[in-house]
């Protein structure tokens, strides 16, 4: 047996840790967490949360793979095919993750447990629904204490949601800039004055910021503990729920949000393309996971998922990804929507730059779909074709890519905005650039267009 590897992000909580062994992820529960874990499992809380689909189920192991004496037990959580970061989520994904956290908190109180942390990194998405992945987030509730993770919830969930609500902008990048949450003082300073008229936002952001500042100035680190009744805590949770419920991001139509609606109007183009893409995907052996990069609203990602594949659907356009997420909530397909700028994919962050892996190292796709994308990278973002090819080589062994020639209407739109020429952006130039890293397995013209679909295999 090979030695186990500590998960680089699982070091904060003394209750246990996640480790990898022989390609599988496990969670060790330490003996210091004995009574809390017993209460979670024996009070019916675990069963209730798992039945509702709110907590990731696990299987308990009979052995101790790490051999550590402090191990109480080891559990194997259900495997997720992709781990997303909150900075890659759309507005509705973050909002649903926030609501899920509050619903779990409310449910756990019924079993005399309370959430000891409230971070979006503990939430993942499975078949279009949020799920808590940290089984060790529960602590005993004694019936008389405030919520220890209140500030964390306000900074990690409420602050970004409220900022997006009041500015009308998708500000996912803020979550990348503030991995520990946007400080309430920062959020309060950025919010417009009218946000003070909302009782809940005033309490949880503005008042929170003022009281925190005074407490810091007075070095009042230890607030004298006063009894905080269950009713008060439930009122606080209701208030946070109201604050989250009231957050909405108006969906403006963006440049790409009607792309496929418009494309569908072109005679038979989309039907023929779907059929061709389906055939070409079927020609690739052993495909379980597909990364649809430049997925738009996920038309092809959903098609692949309906055919039994797990799909990572990434696009730069937040409105498209939000719409895809809303559709997935109803369809429950194994598609992971992601907001991602392919010219600057999510970097590795956290301690030693190892805690949160980069997009490329998390994307274990058997096949990449890159439909109507290459012109955006090569012309829109000025990335030379050999560098585009090298990116795809890093991501996957197989690539289904659409070449959109310079004469195409969509490329012309990009070209007219540019003052420079792209002499290598030709069919021959494309094949030359990609030929260095890939072999051409199939080359098919897309009917009713001048585009070409290539099925490429990494050399």
């Amino acid at each position, binding site marked *: 047996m090979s030695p186990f590897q500590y998960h680089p992000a699982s070091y904060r909580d003394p209750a246990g840790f996640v480790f990898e062994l022989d390609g599988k992820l496990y969670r060790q529960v330490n003996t210091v967490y004995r009574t809390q874990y017993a209460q979670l499992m024996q009070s019916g809380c675990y069963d209730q949360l798992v039945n509702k689909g*709110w907590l990731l189920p696990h299987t308990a192991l009979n052995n101790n793979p790490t051999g550590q004496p402090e191990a109480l037990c080891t559990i194997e959580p259900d495997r997720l095919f992709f781990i997303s970061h909150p900075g890659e989520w759309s507005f509705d994904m973050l909002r649903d993750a926030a*609501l899920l956290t509050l619903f779990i908190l409310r449910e756990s109180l019924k079993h005399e447990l309370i959430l000891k942390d409230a971070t979006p990194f503990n939430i993942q998405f499975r078949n279009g629904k949020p799920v808590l992945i940290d089984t060790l987030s529960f602590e005993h509730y*004694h019936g008389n204490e*405030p919520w220890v*993770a209140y500030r964390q919830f306000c900074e990690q969930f409420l602050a970004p949601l409220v900022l997006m609500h009041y500015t009308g902008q998708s500000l996912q990048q803020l979550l990348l800039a503030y991995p520990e949450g946007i400080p309430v003082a920062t959020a309060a300073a950025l919010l417009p004055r009218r946000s003070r008229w909302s009782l809940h936002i005033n309490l949880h952001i503005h*008042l929170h910021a003022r*009281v925190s500042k005074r407490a*810091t100035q007075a070095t009042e680190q230890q607030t004298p503990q*006063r009894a905080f009744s269950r009713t008060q805590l439930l009122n606080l949770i209701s208030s946070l729920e109201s604050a989250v419920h009231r957050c909405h991001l108006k969906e403006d139509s963006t440049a790409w949000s009607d792309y496929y609606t418009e494309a569908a109007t072109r005679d038979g183009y989309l039907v023929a393309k779907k059929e061709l893409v389906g055939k070409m995907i079927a020609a690739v052996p052993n495909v379980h996971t597909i990364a649809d990069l430049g997925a738009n609203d996920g038309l092809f990602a959903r098609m692949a998922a309906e055919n039994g594949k797990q799909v990572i659907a990434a696009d730069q356009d937040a409105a498209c990804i939000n719409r895809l997420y809303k559709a997935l909530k109803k369809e429950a397909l194994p598609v992971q929507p992601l907001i991602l700028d392919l010219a600057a994919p999510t970097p590795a962050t956290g301690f030693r730059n190892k805690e949160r892996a980069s997009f490329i190292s998390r994307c274990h796709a058997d096949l990449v779909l890159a439909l109507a994308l290459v012109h955006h990278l090569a012309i829109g973002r000025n990335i030379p074709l050999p560098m585009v090819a090298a990116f795809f080589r890093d991501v996957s062994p197989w690539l289904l890519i659409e070449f959109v020639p310079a004469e195409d209407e969509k490329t012309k739109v990009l070209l007219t905005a540019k003052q420079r020429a792209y002499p290598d952006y030709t069919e021959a130039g494309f094949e030359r650039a990609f030929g260095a890293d890939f072999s051409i397995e199939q080359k098919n013209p897309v009917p009713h267009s001048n585009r070409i679909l290539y099925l490429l295999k990494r050399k």
Partner: protein
Amino acid sequence: MVQYLLYIDPGSGSYLVQIIAAAVLGVAMFFKNIKLYIKSFFHRPKKDKDTPPS
């Protein structure tokens, strides 16, 4: 003080703000309940709107 197996810092003033917020919310709930009580004379009470995010 309750001893937890905690690893996060609740934040300076975070407990205090919860106590203040709870007091304000308590008053708000008091008036809300009166409003609902009066309303219930004229309408059938509505079901709680809290639903899971799924």
